[in-house]
């Protein structure tokens, strides 16, 4: 059976489920709860900046580019109504907490980003 948690998006933007962290990624008008985990070595994508075209996140650990659409596909089921978001989690038994963290991934694309940095 699933578990339900309620977040106040005006106060919280991050959910911890056991050792896994999820953050609220803004995509246009929508808010998505995505895994804060770079598929390369697990870097914190919440601290990634968008590439100038806005389509990828540049992981702060190793500069790996992760497509925003791929990150979006990993999002947890969530229904947002105003500032309230109801999130449905699998019932793994892990402790859950809701916090506020700095999210750089929601800032506008980084104009200083060097497209070739990770390949050097």
């Amino acid at each position, binding site marked *: 059976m*699933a578990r339900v948690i*309620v977040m106040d998006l005006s106060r919280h933007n991050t959910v911890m489920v056991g050792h896994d962290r999820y953050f609220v990624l803004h995509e246009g*008008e929508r808010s998505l709860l995505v895994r804060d985990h770079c598929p390369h070595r697990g870097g914190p994508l919440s601290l990634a900046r968008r590439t100038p075209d806005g389509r990828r996140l540049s992981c702060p650990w190793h500069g790996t580019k992760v497509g925003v659409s791929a990150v979006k596909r990993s*999002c947890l*089921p969530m*229904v*947002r*109504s105003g500032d309230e978001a109801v999130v*449905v989690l699998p019932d793994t038994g892990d402790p859950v907490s809701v916090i506020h963290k700095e999210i750089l991934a929601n800032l506008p694309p980084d104009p200083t980003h060097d497209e070739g940095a990770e390949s050097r």
Partner: protein
Amino acid sequence: MTVQPQAAPAAPRAGGTLGKRILAFAGHPLFRGDPQVVHGRNPYRRMLAPGSLAEADFDRPPGPGEWAAHRSLAAHRLLGTFYEAETVLLPEQGLDGLYEDFDLFYGPDLKELREGSVSDLERFAFGCLDEAVDVSGAATPEVLEAYFQHVVEEAAAGPSPALTAIAGARDRKSAADLYLVQLALDGLTEASAMSRNLAGAYGPEQSALFKIFIDEFGYGVYDAKHTTIFAKMLRSRAMATHVHAYWNFYLTGPLATNNYYYYLSRDHAKFFRYAGAVTYAEAVFAPAFVEMIKVFRDIFGDAVDLHYCDEHAHIDEHHGRITRDQVLLALAGRHGPRVVPELLRGIAEARLVGGWFEDDTAAQIRWSDDLPRHRELAGSARTGSEPPRRVVLTAESPFGTRCHDGDVVLEVERGEADLVTTPTGPPERLARGEAVLIPGGRLYGIRPATPETACALHAVPPA
């Protein structure tokens, strides 16, 4: 009548094409109102306050936080009228004397205006839901079930703001009547929106929905029909029972709630959203009516006929189960994950719009129950530097109600006026020089108590 300058600069403020079409509709003689506070036994006439409508900017839809704005009230009054013109309304006493109004209401001129405006007006009135709600993530039937269970438990646990406001009011009877009027909006034409989703062929879910519809219609027995027993409840309170007698007292939130189900039902692309919404509604009705019975019994004892509430407290337990298992979850199972986000959205939107109903009704009860304090607040309110808008009323002026986007101080400059804020409570008499603060979003009407009454409306800038 409505509070407005007699020569309002209507067209320039009403916005572009939609505004002009709407003004043409609302300016029709059927919708100009008459001096009576309660509408007569004529379902085709209803006050659309064309003067105050002219102030509304129909180029700028209300945002999610503006559901109580004046233009939202104006839009929902119109939308409700549009939708009902797609249903059959006949006066109980017969059409004698009303043939002409029947022809006008359903006739080609208004029909053309309606059909040319309804989609734009829906986008105007309900566009804010697109911003207010979103559904994300892999929505499976399991997620749907978990979310649904969560919101239903939450609704069952929480007190109703409107019923809490009634219980805490000084004049509990008037407050309870005001609540009944909000229910009357749907109660006297119950299940009309739902009827639009019964046609077609969509399997056992269609039959499940039809069972509910049959219950609403009393299995074809007029005395058992839900609208009939709703009228009994009104009659026990010595209130009028004809459709939209209390049109002037429908609040924005209840109008939006009622219209929401028509909005979904009119467009079958929104069918799955409708299924989510109706399932939520049926699931939360039963506990709500149990609470209503307690509050009303406490106020009126045995003097009120609560058969309607008893019926719903009972039957909606079954309807809640049927819609959940045989409509909502069955549709998700049969049609797959692609439809689940729409089912979830319908639940979330119904919950949100239902919250508008509750909050609006509670706020109106609190304001109309505490007018002496609003007289005091008028004395200390800082009005802006803008010159006030002036209104002159006579005994022949049509009566209408409205609200304002922000706080306003109403001052009687000449003659005397009755401030009307509830359908059955005593009006508040305002003598020359007296003033009252009308909070933003609160509904009111003014009735002249002298042959000629002049009022000034001073806007109060936000603090």
